[in-house]
């Protein structure tokens, strides 16, 4: 590892050379390489996270290009996971990026998680979020979840057995109703997710048991405390 690449972040007390080596030894599964996944992946690749597994079964379409900065006009029709892996590898050749052009489902979630210490849900559908949540719960792998709707976004960091999981929070909701997405907002929320991810890889959850809400219209961040649901079918105590 060439530490010169990371010189400006190694001087951050919470990172240091030890933290940088920890990041280099880390593997992260990122599900979704779109409006959230793209900026988040750039941030993790730039920070030197050693192995990134990018799972996305979609191809690049024109309506993606208002916010999905991993892709260019010439990428239209190409698999997002493959383009993402190529671009991120060029951005930081020191790390390993695996692009997997599949939709994450209950049946393949466990296999995709193999060797990862952290997972990130940056996907646009609830079934994939919940499948990833269940697979992470089974292996006690922490999970960062992020979503956007218009000017608003939310971020949650799940530590199974300690904090509410996605099944606790998403039960009875229908998140995929709007589809409003602006690059300036997805980029901000993605950066918040990446900051949480890096801290969690270094051993610190900055938002335990809280939903971090971003309001891009008021330019405000709020933390809302949330508790585990005792009856949760995934992480419930009963």
């Amino acid at each position, binding site marked *: 590892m060439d530490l010169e690449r990371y010189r400006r972040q190694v001087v951050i007390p919470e990172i240091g050379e030890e933290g940088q080596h920890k990041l280099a030894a880390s593997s992260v599964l990122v599900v*979704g390489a*779109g*409006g*959230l*996944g793209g900026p988040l992946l750039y941030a993790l690749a730039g920070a030197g996270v050693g192995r990134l597994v990018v799972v996305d079964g979609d191809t690049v379409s024109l309506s993606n290009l208002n916010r999905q900065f991993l892709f260019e006009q010439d990428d239209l029709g190409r698999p997002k996971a493959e383009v993402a892996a190529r671009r991120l590898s060029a951005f930081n050749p020191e790390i390993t990026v695996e692009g997997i052009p599949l939709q994450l489902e209950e049946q393949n979630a466990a296999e995709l998680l193999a060797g990862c210490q952290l997972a990130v849900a*940056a*996907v*646009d*559908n*609830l079934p994939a*979020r919940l499948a990833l949540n269940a697979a992470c719960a089974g292996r006690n792998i922490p999970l960062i979840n*992020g*979503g*956007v*709707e*218009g*000017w*608003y*976004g*939310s971020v949650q960091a799940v530590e199974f057995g300690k904090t*509410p999981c996605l*099944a*606790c*929070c*998403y*039960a*009875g*909701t*229908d*998140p*995929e*109703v*709007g*589809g*409003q*997405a602006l690059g300036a907002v*997805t980029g901000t*929320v993605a950066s918040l997710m990446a900051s949480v991810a890096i801290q969690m890889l270094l051993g610190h959850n900055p938002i335990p048991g809280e*939903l971090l*809400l971003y*309001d891009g*219209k008021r330019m405000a961040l*709020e933390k*809302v*405390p*949330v*508790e*585990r*649901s005792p*009856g*949760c079918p995934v992480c419930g105590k009963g």
Partner: protein
Amino acid sequence: MATVRYHGRLAELTGCREESLDGANVSKVLDQIKKRHGAEAGKLAKRSHILVDKRSAGAEKGFRTPVGVDSTVEFIPVCGGG
């Protein structure tokens, strides 16, 4: 009366971030929101991620989740896109 907190667009529609409302359960609180702030606010509130005393109502009894006089009910925008 329960403390009701609004986030995101619902705070704009209601013109406030917090208020006190009556209601023995989530459904009754939603009725109050619709009555006080109009149909659009009521509809958006119903589609929100609703927390009652820090727990997701959806994981409890849904719209029948009890709301006490000292309860705090949060209405959070559902952010599922990516």
